[in-house]
């Protein structure tokens, strides 16, 4: 990853043209969620917060990014030390909290700042490497700042080029490929089996937490309906209501499974809920099309030999977790390649910045970290 340094009070780089862009803030890597949640900005707060922050930090231009994993500012200024010093005060004042965020905050200037933004946009600094949600959040943060007249040529160029850089990384590497949670791996597998999930009906057996999350993921990706069966009908009703689905009495789940495409099971039954023999009988009654079975229960609910039947795809919790881990490892191996792709984008921005200030050595000057 790119170098990161704490904000310190030093004015040695103040006159560097590359010091025009700075960034800083708090991230999940150094600040626990108990503190981050105290200084997170709601969408509605951003316009006021931006104006206040810009004034207190002495920024000519400003963008404020607030996600569940980071609260960061990006700015253009000739007084980065003022910004570093005022940032914790701004957080305290705006959110009316007493914590001192100085030791937890970082600040980057010039090229390291550019590298940082491009890495964040590409998902290289995310908790889940390669996730793409942060790019949307960055776009939203930039949009808010733009709309309220808080950006100018430095940040406009910086953010727009960061979006292009992130796209390039996504296109030319596998950094976003492969999902890394049980729910998203299930969705990925379902999409590889059925393609579009808009015609896939889902059934949940047992009202467990993981099965609920997995069902939500499938619904979020277009599954049109869900049925919930549980030995305690009231629990089935409660979960069905939460998911916007239909509760099915336990004794009728097989009849209601005839047109189901995806079945998630997480009951606490000590024996198989669905044996190969019972499924074969069920398949005889249903139209020929694939069936995706997700067994999240321990002990397992579906007899493993079911996977030998044609058009039936069975995954248990270990299979899904193993795939998620493999994906995560693969994403991590893509970081170096992603950074190589980002390099020319960073250089192009720094060359442009150098031309704006008439300083051809802008790159060299800006490469160093903020001084202690």
């Amino acid at each position, binding site marked *: 990853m790119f170098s990161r340094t704490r904000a310190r009070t030093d004015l040695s780089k103040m006159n560097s043209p590359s010091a025009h862009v700075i960034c800083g803030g708090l991230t999940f890597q150094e600040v626990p969620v108990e503190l981050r949640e105290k200084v997170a900005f709601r969408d509605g707060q951003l316009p006021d917060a931006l104006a206040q922050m810009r004034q207190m930090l002495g920024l000519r231009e400003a963008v404020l990014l607030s996600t569940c994993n980071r609260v960061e500012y990006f700015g253009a200024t000739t007084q980065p030390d003022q910004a570093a010093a005022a940032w914790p005060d701004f957080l305290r004042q705006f959110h009316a909290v007493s914590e001192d965020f100085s030791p937890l905050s970082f600040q980057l200037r010039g090229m390291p700042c550019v590298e940082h933004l491009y890495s964040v946009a590409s998902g290289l600094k995310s908790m889940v490497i390669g996730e793409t949600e942060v790019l949307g959040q960055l776009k939203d943060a930039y949009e808010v700042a733009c709309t309220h007249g808080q950006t100018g040529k430095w940040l406009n160029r910086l953010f727009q080029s960061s979006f292009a850089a992130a796209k390039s990384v996504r296109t030319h590497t596998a950094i976003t490929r492969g999902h890394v949670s049980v729910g998203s791996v299930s969705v990925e597998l379902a999409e590889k089996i059925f*393609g579009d999930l808009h015609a896939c009906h889902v059934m949940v057996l047992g009202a467990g937490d993981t099965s609920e999350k997995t069902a939500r993921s499938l619904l979020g990706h277009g599954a049109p309906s869900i049925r919930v069966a549980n030995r305690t009908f009231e629990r089935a009703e409660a979960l069905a209501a939460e998911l916007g689905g239909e509760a099915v009495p336990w004794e009728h789940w097989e009849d209601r499974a005839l047109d189901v495409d995806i079945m998630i099971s997480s009951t606490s039954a000590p024996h198989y809920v669905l044996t190969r023999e019972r499924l074969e009988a069920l398949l005889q009654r249903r139209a020929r099309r694939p069936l995706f079975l997700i067994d999240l229960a321990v002990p397992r609910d579906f007899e493993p030999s079911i996977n030998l039947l044609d058009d039936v795809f069975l995954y248990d919790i270990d299979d899904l977790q193993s795939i998620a881990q493999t994906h995560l490892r693969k994403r991590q191996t893509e970081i170096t390649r992603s950074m190589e792709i980002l390099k020319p984008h960073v250089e192009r921005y720094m060359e442009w910045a150098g031309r704006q200030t008439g300083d051809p050595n802008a790159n060299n000057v800006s490469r160093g970290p903020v001084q202690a």
Partner: protein
Amino acid sequence: MLGLTGSVNDRLWLFLATLGYLASAGWGLYALSSQRPLANRGAFVLIAIAFVLHTVFLQERGQAIQHCPITNLFETLAFFSWSLVLTYMVVGPAYRMSILGAFTAPVVFLINAFALAAPIDLPGKLPQLGWQLELHATLALLGLGVLGVAAMAGIAYLIQERQLKRHVLTAWFYSLPNVGRLEQVQQRVLILGFVIFSAGTILGFFIPHRGPDDWVKIAWSAAVWCLYAVLVGVLALGRLSHKKTALLSVAGYVFILLTFWGINSLSEAHVFPHEG
């Protein structure tokens, strides 16, 4: 080894096209393994260039002999492989299945390499084809080409299905389309191919010819037509699993590949009525 024209010029086009298919096959395999979303574009460009060269060969040969270039086994094999690529060039982009080129290119390379290497481009009297015979042969060969693309989709399906069953997701898993899409494409392609092949076969009954009927060729064509009918039938009736349907289409095409040369060598139907 010289063509009917006595020139190696048109064979050179086919030779270059064959090299293009080989390069495309290599690039396609790389694209399947690379997990780079745009890697397959190179393979598609290569197969498109090879297809143009292949077409130039057929056009040159056709002009030289003043007939549809299916007058000997060499030309027939070249036309047979060309029909496979033609179908791929239509189906691949239309269904966003360009990755099937990774399977198509090696097959076409092997067919063409065999055609170029075997002593089958023999000079002889030019048969008097006539439009009915040309259309019959063209439709029949196109029908076989379409079955070839269905088989390529079947191969892709079997690979994806195997990975999903074994829970081992390699780079190919991400490069290949989802199994639902592969089934859909295979089904549509088979119906299209069945219509084309049936039209070509039926037309064959109305072509005037001299001498006895060629029962070898008729039996082989009937077997291929039955294969097609079974495939389309089981798909429509939902009698076989997707896996078995894919296996059947692949096995059927392998049968055609293995018997095409022999049947066409033995066949007397294509001892056409000669001029003069």
